[in-house]
């Protein structure tokens, strides 16, 4: 069984990825990398990652969020984060990455920020 399920939704020109499971070293990180790579290949470069269903993330997963962010930026796009759990917020604070990512609690607010 895979550690993570990633579902895709479209809201205008923004692609929302709903992540459910673990983003950890191995499968979870690779699944996220592949999903981002695929979207960029399809020309979808406004991406909102919904992390509300992510029960666990490790340093490898945090690294994958950073890699996703830089990969999307490189393609002239934007990647933002939605619904961080307290644990993920703590880890992003420790790593000072809350200063890097745009983070939202409400999907509507996140979507309108892309325009």
């Amino acid at each position: 069984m895979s550690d993570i399920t990633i579902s895709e939704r479209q809201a205008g020109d923004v692609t929302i990825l709903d992540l459910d499971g673990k983003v950890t070293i191995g499968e979870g990180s690779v699944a996220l990398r592949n999903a981002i790579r695929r979207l960029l290949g399809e020309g979808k470069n406004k991406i909102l990652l919904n992390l509300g269903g992510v029960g666990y993330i490790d340093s490898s997963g945090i690294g994958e969020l950073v890699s996703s962010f830089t990969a999307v930026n490189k393609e002239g796009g934007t990647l933002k984060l939605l619904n961080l759990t307290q644990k993920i917020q703590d880890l992003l604070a420790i790593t000072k990455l809350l200063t890097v990512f745009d983070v939202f609690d409400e999907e509507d607010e996140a979507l309108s920020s892309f325009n």
Partner: protein
Amino acid sequence: MLKLPSRIESVDEAAIKADEFAKEQGLGDDFVSAIDLAIRESVANAVKHGNKFAEGKTVDVTFARTEEGFEITVRDYGTGFEIDTIPDPTDPENLLKANGRGILFMRSFMDEVEWSNPEGGGTVVKMVKRR
């Protein structure tokens, strides 16, 4: 002592065993969560950076309830490293690097983290979480 193969699956295996043990000891959720994160990061480092996935090398893990709290050791059989040479991942120039945050997490969630180079080679990281 757990002697685990140098592969990614060992991260889960070590964490599951440590979680079971910590819960048996009646330790609280925050405590168990800190131990889980520390053991995952340290075993991942041992597999990747220490043993470099070498099939013939094991990752040796111990955990024990002590008077102080909870103690974990993780040993690899790699060539070792100098902790002072590890870049600070929170430096602005390192913020967008994909790797290098595991040690920061170990230090953030455990009360003591120290490295040593035992006879026979490799590196041992010893981590203590106080009650």
